[in-house]
């Protein structure tokens, strides 16, 4: 902790702190709030889809457009405020400066401003529930013309404006954070911390920050254009001949919704890698720590991280195969999409090799953070395997907008990302509170979550193959063609309830361990990286980040900042 924080009085210390750890914790709490709200929304959706006439608490009977509002807000909360805010801003603020031997971010005030803008953005988004018309209904991707015209639906007036303002603020805050992280990584590394001695988490945040600069700036431009379509009577995205409630729109409307699709997915696909790259860096670090072996192929892991970042910028068109895009462009995007599977599988093989080589030296029994890392690996493989299927335009023509896609991205992005976030919280909890989280509760939490997650998302593949589209509020009603899927969806709903209930164990564990958990000491996981070393000025690094059992006749692990044994 920095000196200025200690000298301030308590409330000021929490409100206006520029200490990177406090800001990291605040970010993580923010994403905890968002994930709780997002989970409740998803439970509402799951219940509504099997029992459309049931009265839900706070909501009553959900109308079909209400279901779409739930979908929109669930997606937005989870993608922006959980999977981006948590691993990128939260964890990076928490440990990034410490891992490179600095005691503070390069621009601490900017870090705090980023936090408050993110909090403001979350507040603006959640306020969309309480305005007339309610939350927007056009999905987290908000394709025009649905999102461009206030008359298009109940939530598309004020609710949609609030969504756009919230995401605009979020873009700005994320760009500020990316600037801060890049500057920190370049200018604040301590003596001896060369590029090839950086922990892989730092490499992941480096690539992530560059992706954020690219992607969120583009989204900000798209948001500005959509807002001007809505309020300044332009028509960047509104196509001609649009009829709402029998009334033809103003004659000068001659824009193209495709333009929004391109801009949005140029942001949207890098966003996926923004969410998952920190998880990959963390996985490499944790596997090394708990198998007590150096990372297998450190340079290879750095190269694949950069390759994933690079290809991630070139694949956005695979979200638009069925949008009427030029078929040649579709082929090109299919190729780049399948190319990104190469570095991703390289990483997976590296992790599996690490596990194989470390099977004798690993920690017994496996601690909770390691279990969650293995869970990440499992979901990343299970969800990743359906990626190359969806990458092919022919197969995508059938599977587009079905539950198959929902299953794919919930496994590979949502579950993998959240499990890695859990791993990070269990692993770095001592840095936040000085205590360890309860292992028994943690293991129960892991196994129940793993079973619940697979039971929820694997059957969705079947629903997708059977042709059930996303965003349908109910299966029964005027048409009966999807009625046969009701038993499957009922099972999924029960699994989802089980999965959500299992998360209560995590909340209990957090609350209990923060006060009563076992004291952690200085380096509870016997790690080598600098965040576990005591803060001191003039830190100096002598070696790479993962020297576990590096010299067989010596100690088990050598911290990065340990002097050479000969000199001691």
């Amino acid at each position, binding site marked *: 902790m920095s000196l200025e924080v200690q000298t301030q009085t308590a409330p000021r210390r929490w409100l206006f702190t520029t200490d990177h750890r406090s800001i990291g914790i605040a970010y993580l709490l923010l994403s905890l709030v968002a994930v709780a709200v997002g989970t409740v929304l998803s439970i509402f959706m799951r219940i509504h889809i099997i029992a459309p006439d049931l009265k839900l608490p706070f909501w009553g009977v959900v109308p079909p457009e209400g279901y779409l509002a739930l979908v929109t807000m669930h997606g937005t909360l989870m993608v922006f405020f959980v999977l981006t805010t948590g691993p990128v801003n939260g964890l990076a603020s928490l440990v990034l400066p410490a891992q490179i031997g600095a005691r503070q971010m390069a621009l601490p005030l*900017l870090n705090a401003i980023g936090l408050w803008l993110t909090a403001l953005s979350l507040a603006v988004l959640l306020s969309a529930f309480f305005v007339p018309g309610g939350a927007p209904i056009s999905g987290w991707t908000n394709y025009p013309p649905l999102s461009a015209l206030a008359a298009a639906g109940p939530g598309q007036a004020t609710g949609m404006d609030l969504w756009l303002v919230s995401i605009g603020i979020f873009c700005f805050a994320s760009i500020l954070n990316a600037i801060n992280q890049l500057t920190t990584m370049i200018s604040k590394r301590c003596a001896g911390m060369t590029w090839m001695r950086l922990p892989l988490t730092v490499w992941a945040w480096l690539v992530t920050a560059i992706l954020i600069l690219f992607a969120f700036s583009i989204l900000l431009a798209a948001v500005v254009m959509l807002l001007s379509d809505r309020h300044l009577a332009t028509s*960047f995205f509104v196509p001609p001949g649009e009829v709402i409630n029998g009334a033809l729109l103003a004659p000068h409307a001659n824009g193209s919704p495709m333009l929004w699709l391109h801009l949005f997915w140029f942001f949207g696909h890098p966003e996926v890698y923004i969410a998952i790259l920190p998880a990959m860096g963390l996985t490499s670090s944790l596997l090394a720590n708990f198998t007590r072996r150096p990372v297998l192929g450190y340079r290879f892991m750095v190269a694949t991280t950069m390759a994933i970042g690079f290809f991630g910028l070139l694949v956005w068109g695979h979200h638009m195969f069925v949008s009427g895009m030029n078929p040649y462009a579709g082929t090109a995007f299919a190729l780049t999409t399948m190319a990104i599977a190469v570095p991703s599988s390289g990483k997976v093989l590296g992790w599996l090799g690490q596990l194989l080589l470390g099977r004798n030296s690993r920690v017994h029994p496996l601690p909770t953070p390691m279990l969650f890392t293995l869970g990440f690996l499992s979901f990343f493989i299970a969800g990743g395997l359906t990626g190359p299927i969806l990458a092919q335009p022919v197969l995508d023509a059938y599977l587009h907008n079905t539950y198959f896609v929902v299953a794919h991205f919930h496994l590979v992005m949502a579950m993998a990302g959240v499990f890695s976030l859990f791993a990070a919280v269990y692993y770095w909890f001592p840095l936040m509170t000085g205590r360890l989280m309860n292992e028994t509760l943690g293991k129960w939490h892991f196994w129940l979550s793993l079973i619940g997650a697979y039971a929820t998302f694997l059957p969705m593949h079947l629903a997708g193959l059977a042709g059930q589209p996303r965003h349908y509020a109910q299966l029964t009603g005027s048409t009966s063609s999807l009625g046969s899927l009701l038993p499957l969806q009922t099972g999924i709903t029960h699994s989802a309830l089980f999965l959500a209930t299992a998360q209560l164990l995590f909340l209990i564990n957090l609350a209990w361990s923060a006060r009563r958990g076992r004291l952690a000491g200085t380096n509870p996981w016997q790690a080598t990286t600098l965040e576990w070393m005591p803060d001191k000025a003039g830190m100096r690094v002598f070696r790479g980040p993962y020297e576990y059992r590096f010299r067989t006749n010596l100690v088990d692990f050598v911290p990065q900042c340990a002097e050479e044994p000969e000199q001691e």
Partner: protein
Amino acid sequence: MPATFTRTPAEIDRKDTGIGGKPPVDRRPTGGGGGGDDNWDNHPRGRRGPRELLTRYRLGLFFALAGDLMFFIALVSAFFVRQNAGHFDPRDNYVSDWHPLAVPPILWINTAILLLSSLSIEVARQHLFHEVDVMEEWLGLGRPAVRRASPWLIATAILGALFLAGQWIAWQQLSSQGLFFATNQNSHFFYLITATHGIHLILGIIALTIALCALFLLRRVEMRQIVVDCTAWYWHTMGLFWIFLFVLLTCFQ
């Protein structure tokens, strides 16, 4: 931990650049405290070069400008997509709603004014890095660099305001021809691009005002250099962006 107000060595260490520390004119290649030279034996242990802060703020600014560049690239690519978005109607006629727009000639004058302002802020920046003056300021013998730089900063702000006024006149001329923001695709882009660039210039003028106040308020020579340096680079980049956008609006209609 008990609240304590004693200065630890760490805090003194952090404040040693500027007054009482090393003069901020050091030109050693290792001054950045990171980056190019990875041989850490060349770096003095326990302290960093005097330009560490300057490098850090410059880096931050350059990353911010890179993000900003992406923002404008998004607008420009949308411009080209819309330009080529014509289609063939059932009778095989090419239909395009893209009506080229003749930019008001006053934009040429505006561009010249913006180039001049870039020149004047560069003069101000050079003054703050003029070695003899900076040494004098650092030793506390008056503030010659501030005295010489501030008129140029004021001139830059005035030229920037003139540019914005010129843009406003250009908008007036267009709207007197019946071309408003909502008129057609082309006017959408003209107004959107000039307006977003104008907002960036307003921010630049605010930054200039802050820099001007900071020149007289900041105690440390190094911080004065940073404020003016970052404002200048921002201003130059906005000038560069304008040239690209102007070429786009004039030649690629």
